[in-house]
């Protein structure tokens, strides 16, 4: 029940009594004045005072008590206290300040009653007490409440005396005027007000204990009625027994005392039982708590994860397990002298503050999360925390288990970095990288692919791979996929193939595709790296075209030179033949000059034929396909020299050919080279009686160079640059015959073998021609 309601109820009851009494005085109804006729009456002054007190109490405990209500209530209380004080003073000083007659009116037959009605001393006292109580009960100081409470209790006792007196029929005659009895209704009203005041202080004193859920409160609630009623009941029994003659007065006293002893004993016994039970329950609860704590402690201590308990208010470590000591490097004593702030790096402290505050507000919450801690030697750890609230050694505490995830986090970060790297690789690659799953659906489409095919990744992931290829290939693709998935046999996997792709706008283009396949658990996935080779294809096609054109050109050249050689020679033959015929048939008719002319004609024709042959030879050298074989250069040199010697047996030439010289090249062309070089050497030593021709090899710049040396006519080094030109000669035809093609041919052949050719010489001292292959 709401205490305020009780208060107002009590006030209302008191008000009723007082009002009824006043009505009784006004309308002369004896019953209302004294309840039991013949007993003392409630004096009107008393009634008014009670009214005032009731009103004051009501005002003090309205649902919305404002300051003016409290002020009025205090004022009323003060008036009432004053009234009481005056009345008491009357008794003390023997004079009657007329207070008793204050509200009496002169009415008929009530005068006698009126004359005798006075505010009795106890009533006055009680009014004084209650007035004081009402004034002080809302005082801001604790003393005020204590006084109010005490006054109310005292007043209640006084009224209770009167009430009991009335209950046992006594009119309560006493010699002391001070103890003149108060009326029944007065007593009832006063008790009601006392109850109200006590209830108006619900968290203090009697009311507090009565309302308390503790054992004490329960005890009081149960025992108070018994304590109040038992004596009255027993006394009533004694009186009835005495009147019924069961026992006389002394017997009655004995019975009463014995009965009181029994009842009090019973009450005490019951109280003891209640206390014992509660004690036992508390003991059990404590044992259970200890067991639970013990369990926690055990789990806590043996846990491989670091864990500790810290006080929620001071943040100090209360307990710490072995794992924590090992991990963080502090001893148990060190821990107990630290707070949880000390194991964190400075930047975490604000967040810690927030968390602790949160825990303070929600004590039963289990918290968790990722935190950074610092060990004794400064190492930073990342830990995953689980914590629970508990009561530890009577304090509000939090138990924490810290799971070290530093390694895991590092691995995760490394994995993320690696993934990032590969993602960036794929994202920035120029080639298209496309991944698909076993159903042929695109799962990854990199920016390179977006550029190549013209789709945005978002448009095309989730679609079939087939959309990227022309219609006519889709069936083959599907079959290929099926075959691979069912048999594991792959035609295309792991190889690079050329296919045709289809861009978004429908154009087709050639592409190069490398396909890889990998398993992820049960799933199969494919990744293709694709390169647009349209440009390359074009270049290849162009190249093929050029090659074909070159072939054609070569063939034409072939045919041309073939026919040219034949057609050019025929007229030459005629020129020469008929010149000779002329000489033979008509020579005698010609003079010396005439014959000379014809000789020159013949020589010229001859020369031309040689030129044609040489030129043909030169062009053939350029066109012929190069064979690469091991060629015995020494042997070829021997053969060539033998031929030369056979052609001019009269000459004596010292020939030195280094043995065992081999090279890789085309045998026919290399023979041509040696024929030319040795032939030149032979020719240009023609004037020398004893010539020397050498063929050998030497090392220069790390490569082997072959040389043909002669000690013949030599040449002027100033013109060395012209040596290898076509038709270039450094000697006139009169000195040495020749067309000037020989060295050009040699150069061409050597160049085709990837080598170089050069010469040294001096006029009259011979020449040396070098070549590499």
């Amino acid at each position, binding site marked *: 029940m709401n205490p305020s309601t009780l208060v107002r109820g009590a006030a209302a009851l008191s008000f009723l009594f007082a009002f009824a009494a006043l009505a009784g005085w006004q309308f002369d109804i004896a019953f209302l004045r004294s309840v039991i006729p013949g007993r003392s009456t409630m004096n009107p002054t008393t009634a008014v005072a009670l009214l005032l007190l009731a009103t004051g109490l009501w005002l003090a405990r309205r649902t919305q008590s404002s300051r003016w209500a409290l002020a009025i209530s205090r004022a009323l209380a003060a008036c009432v206290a004053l009234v009481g004080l005056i009345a008491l003073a009357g008794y003390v000083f023997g004079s009657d300040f007329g207070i008793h007659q204050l509200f009496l009116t002169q009415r008929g037959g009530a005068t006698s009653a009126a004359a005798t009605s006075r505010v009795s001393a106890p009533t006055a006292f009680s009014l004084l007490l209650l007035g004081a109580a009402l004034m002080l009960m809302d005082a801001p100081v604790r003393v005020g409440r204590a006084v109010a409470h005490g006054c109310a209790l005292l007043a209640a006792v006084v009224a209770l005396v009167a009430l009991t007196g009335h209950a046992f029929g006594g009119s309560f005659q006493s010699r002391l005027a001070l103890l003149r009895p108060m009326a029944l209704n007065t007593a009832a009203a006063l008790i009601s007000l006392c109850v109200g005041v006590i209830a108006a202080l619900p968290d203090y004193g009697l009311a507090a204990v009565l309302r308390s859920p503790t054992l004490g409160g329960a005890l009081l609630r149960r025992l108070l009625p018994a304590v109040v009623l038992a004596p009255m009941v027993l006394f009533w029994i004694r009186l009835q027994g005495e009147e019924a003659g069961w026992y006389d007065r002394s017997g009655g006293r004995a019975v009463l005392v014995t009965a009181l002893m029994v009842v009090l004993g019973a009450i005490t016994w019951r109280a003891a039982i209640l206390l014992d039970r509660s004690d036992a329950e508390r003991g059990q609860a404590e044992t259970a708590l200890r067991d639970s704590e013990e369990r926690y402690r055990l789990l806590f201590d043996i846990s491989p994860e670091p864990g500790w308990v810290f006080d929620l208010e001071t943040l100090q470590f209360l307990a710490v397990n072995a794992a924590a000591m090992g991990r963080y490097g502090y001893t148990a004593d060190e821990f107990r002298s630290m707070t949880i702030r000390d194991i964190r790096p400075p930047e975490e402290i604000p967040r810690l503050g927030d968390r602790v505050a949160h825990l303070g507000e929600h004590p039963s919450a289990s918290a968790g999360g990722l935190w950074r801690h610092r060990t004794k030697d400064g190492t930073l750890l990342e830990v995953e925390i689980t914590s629970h609230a508990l009561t530890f050694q009577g304090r509000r505490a939090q138990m924490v288990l810290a799971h070290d995830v530093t390694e895991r986090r590092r691995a995760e970060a490394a994995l993320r970095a690696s993934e990032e790297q590969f993602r960036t690789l794929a994202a920035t690659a120029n080639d298209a990288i496309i991944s698909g799953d076993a159903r042929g659906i695109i799962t990854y489409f990199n920016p390179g692919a977006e550029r190549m095919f013209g789709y945005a990744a978002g448009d095309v992931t989730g679609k079939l791979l087939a959309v990227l290829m022309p219609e006519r290939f889709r069936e083959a693709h599907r079959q290929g996929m099926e075959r691979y998935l069912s048999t594991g046999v792959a035609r295309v996997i792991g190889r690079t193939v050329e296919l045709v792709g289809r861009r978004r706008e429908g154009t087709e283009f050639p592409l190069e595709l490398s396909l890889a396949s990998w398993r992820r658990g049960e799933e199969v996935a494919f990744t293709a790296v694709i390169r647009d080779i349209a440009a390359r294809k074009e270049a290849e096609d162009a190249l093929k075209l050029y090659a074909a054109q070159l072939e054609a050109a070569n063939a034409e050249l072939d045919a041309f030179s*073939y*026919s040219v*050689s*034949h*057609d050019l*020679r*025929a*007229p*030459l*033959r*005629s020129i*020469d*033949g*008929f*010149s*000779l*015929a002329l000489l*033979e048939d008509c020579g005698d008719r010609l003079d010396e000059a005439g014959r000379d002319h014809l000789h020159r004609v*013949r020589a010229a*024709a*001859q020369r031309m*034929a040689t030129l044609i*042959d040489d030129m*043909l030879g030169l062009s053939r050298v350029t066109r012929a396909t190069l064979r690469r074989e091991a060629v015995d250069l020494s042997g070829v040199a021997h053969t060539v020299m033998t031929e030369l010697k056979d052609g001019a047996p009269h000459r004596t030439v010292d020939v030195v050919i280094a043995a065992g010289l081999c090279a890789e090249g085309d045998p026919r062309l290399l023979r041509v080279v040696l024929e030319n070089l040795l032939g030149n050497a032979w020719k240009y030593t023609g004037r020398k009686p004893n010539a020397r021709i050498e063929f050998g090899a030497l090392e220069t710049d790390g490569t082997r160079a072959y040389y043909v040396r002669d000690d013949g006519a030599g040449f002027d080094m100033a013109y060395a640059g012209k040596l290898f030109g076509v038709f270039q000669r450094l000697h006139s035809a009169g000195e040495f015959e020749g067309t000037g093609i020989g060295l050009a041919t040699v150069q061409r052949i050597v160049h085709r073998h990837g080598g170089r050719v050069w010469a040294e010489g001096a006029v009259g001292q011979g020449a040396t021609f070098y070549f590499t292959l």
Partner: protein
Amino acid sequence: MKDEKVILLVEDNPDDALLTRRAFEKNHVTNEIVVAHDGVEALDYLFGTGLHAGRDVRMMPQVVLLDLKLPKLDGLEVLRRLRADERTKLLPVVILTSSTEERDLLSGYRLGANSYVRKPVNFSDFAEAARQLGLYWLLLNQPPPEVARG
């Protein structure tokens, strides 16, 4: 030098024909020299068709001097046809050409030529070659028996 042995010269160039005849004469080869100016004429003569219709084809020349570069029918083609026909299969054929191309050499022998002689530009050399040819093919060489030629 026997007279009834005929030499068939297949040569389109009149200068060359004249020079060849002169070369033989200079070297006292007095056999009749029949000149065919192209491949068709050569075949006509040998088989008695066309221009030479009515010739007695039993009278085969002793030797055929065949130039390769001929109008209408090429020298090698003539050779092929000659060798394809029973009557001329064994007929001695000397390819007389100015070509130095290796493939002509190869083709000539492959098709069954008996000899390959290069025509030199120098007439003196040419005359010498003619003398040697005449000496060899007309005197030294044993022709296939008449029965086969029949």
